[in-house]
């Protein structure tokens, strides 16, 4: 069985975040990037399936600029077999639906039985790609997976995390798309051997022309979802600085937590 993991290179949480001068996104010049945290768990899930013999080949795919290839290299170094990098300047500013179309075009003939993605990307939080791609492929999709277990060759049982920590258990008939939560496994680290071996693993780089797509269909100009504003979080209205001695502050804090949050 062939499996695909979708990954994204996102600003890492230790970066310095400033609003860009156009006011529509953060200033990317001061950012450092790393693989989206959710995607690491998705990858680990597939690598574990490969270790157990369920999956024969693990492929990682990203859509993004040249620098995004570092997310793919991370996947290859930790154990993915090959990678697909879709990059095209015309895709800067495209919307989630177009992005899903691009991914669809890149993989529709690959015959993947299982496609995993992170539940969301740490930067834009759209939580859409997995679902949209499943729609385009006509595959079933389960989101927020907390565990994946094969029932038989074509049935995958997925425990999904619901709002109040309940778990819903669903069975998917393969081929299927699953988006995973963080914390569902312990992602392995890249080994030195893995890093050096990754150098020789194939990375296919594809542009829109290779996919038979036109910038007018999927580029920024075709976006039906556009960013029109971007603002830092407003200073919390409910925030209050407690004063007094450490003991007084602690006592006050405990009583507030008791009253307001109903815990303790």
């Amino acid at each position, binding site marked *: 069985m062939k499996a695909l993991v979708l990954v994204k290179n996102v600003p890492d949480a230790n970066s310095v975040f400033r609003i860009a001068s156009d006011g529509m996104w953060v200033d990317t010049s001061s950012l450092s990037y*790393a693989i989206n945290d959710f995607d690491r768990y998705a990858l680990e899930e597939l690598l574990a399936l490969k270790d157990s013999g369920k999956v024969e080949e693990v492929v990682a795919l990203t859509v993004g600029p040249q620098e995004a290839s570092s997310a793919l290299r991370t996947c290859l*170094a930790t154990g993915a077999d090959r990678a697909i990098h879709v990059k095209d300047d015309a895709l800067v500013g495209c919307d989630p639906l177009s992005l899903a179309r691009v991914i669809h075009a890149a993989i529709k003939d690959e015959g993947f039985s299982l496609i995993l993605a992170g539940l969301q990307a740490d930067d834009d939080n759209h939580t859409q790609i997995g679902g949209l791609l499943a729609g385009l492929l006509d595959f079933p999709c389960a989101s927020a997976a907390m565990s994946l277990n094969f029932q038989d060759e074509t049935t995958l049982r997925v425990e999904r995390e619901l709002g109040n920590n309940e778990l819903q258990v669903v069975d998917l008939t393969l081929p299927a798309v699953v988006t995973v939560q963080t914390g569902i496994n312990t992602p392995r*680290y890249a080994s030195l051997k893995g*890093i050096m071996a990754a150098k020789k693993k194939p990375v296919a780089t594809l542009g829109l022309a290779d996919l038979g797509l036109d910038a007018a269909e999927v580029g920024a100009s075709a976006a039906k979802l556009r960013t029109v504003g971007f603002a830092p979080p407003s200073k919390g209205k409910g925030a209050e600085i407690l004063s007094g001695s450490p003991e007084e502050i602690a006592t006050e804090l405990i009583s507030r937590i008791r009253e307001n949050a109903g815990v303790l």
Partner: protein
Amino acid sequence: MDFRLSHEQEQIRRAVREVVSDFPGEYWQKLDQELGYPQEFIEALTRGGWLAALIPQEYGGIGVGLVEASLILEEINRSPGNAGVCHAQMYIMGTLLRHGSTEQKKKFLPPLAAGELRLQAFGVTEPTTGSDTTQLQTFARRDGDRYVVNGQKVWISRAEHSDLMLLLARTTPAGELAKKTEGLSVLLVDLRAAIGHGITIKPIRTMMNHHSCELFIDELEVPADNLIGEEGQGFRYILDGMNAERILIAAECIGDARFFLDRSSDYAKEREVFGRPIGQNQGIQFPLARAHAHTEAADLVRFRAATAFDHDVPCGADANIAKLLAADASWEAGNAAVQTLGGFGFAAEYDIERKLRETRLYQVAPISTNLILTYVAERVLGLPRSY
């Protein structure tokens, strides 16, 4: 000139950072207090193949260069940890690799690469001769198919935690030599068999947890098959290994310096006294900025030396200079860090005081600063020899 690291080198940095993130300050504080050995840490590094970096692939290792190896050790020291506990596993085998026979390499390198065998001890220094290595007195007498060794070594690190030791011993009496750099030989000693049968180990309590020992060697038998290279050429064999050691230790010092600077910059931004962050005072800023500049300079020479080593170009001067600059920079950064953290700089919980004790070693070992300066003065600048 392109000073950027390759993708693989960047990944090495990131991956080592992940491994060491499982070993926080508390782990090292506890070891320091209990004089313990970081078994779990060594195992984690071994699993990832990190300590087999320099062993060629044909012997089961990874076969990367000294540039990459130096990044690994730098990142360990950039954490609260200390690569002194394991760095020797990386480079001591270099003498075996470059000068050992094919049989010796086939026998020892694969289990070393797999971490099944530890070659972490290097027996050079002696109590009476110190830095004057060519005068060492431990004597290995050839007797049929074996050597019989007698003598004493001091400061031999990790001897209690290593399976094998590379021993430098005299095989020709000093008086019978035309050249004083000859007459020494390198023997691979199996410590597991030798302890209690020719070697007695006595740990030395030091200002840091470095697992250094005194070795008393009495009628120790070593198979002649364990002689590395030719008899009498041992000093030459260990010299090229020493360049690798100096470059790697420079990288560790750079890691230490960056740890001190990371921690103290963060602290100086947060800590408010007199109504503003202490880091707003130039009295706090300048020592940190200066230490940073010195660290960057040391880093450049480190990479120049490591690149030369990897290309088999003479690197003795750069290796020594890198170690000198890096050890100075880490000490300067550590000192500035203590000053920045004020009282907390002395608190074990903050890791600064411990790492400052640890980094202080590199002004003295494996070669002292004075002897590096002597090397630079006499070998690089051509000044008259002082000894």
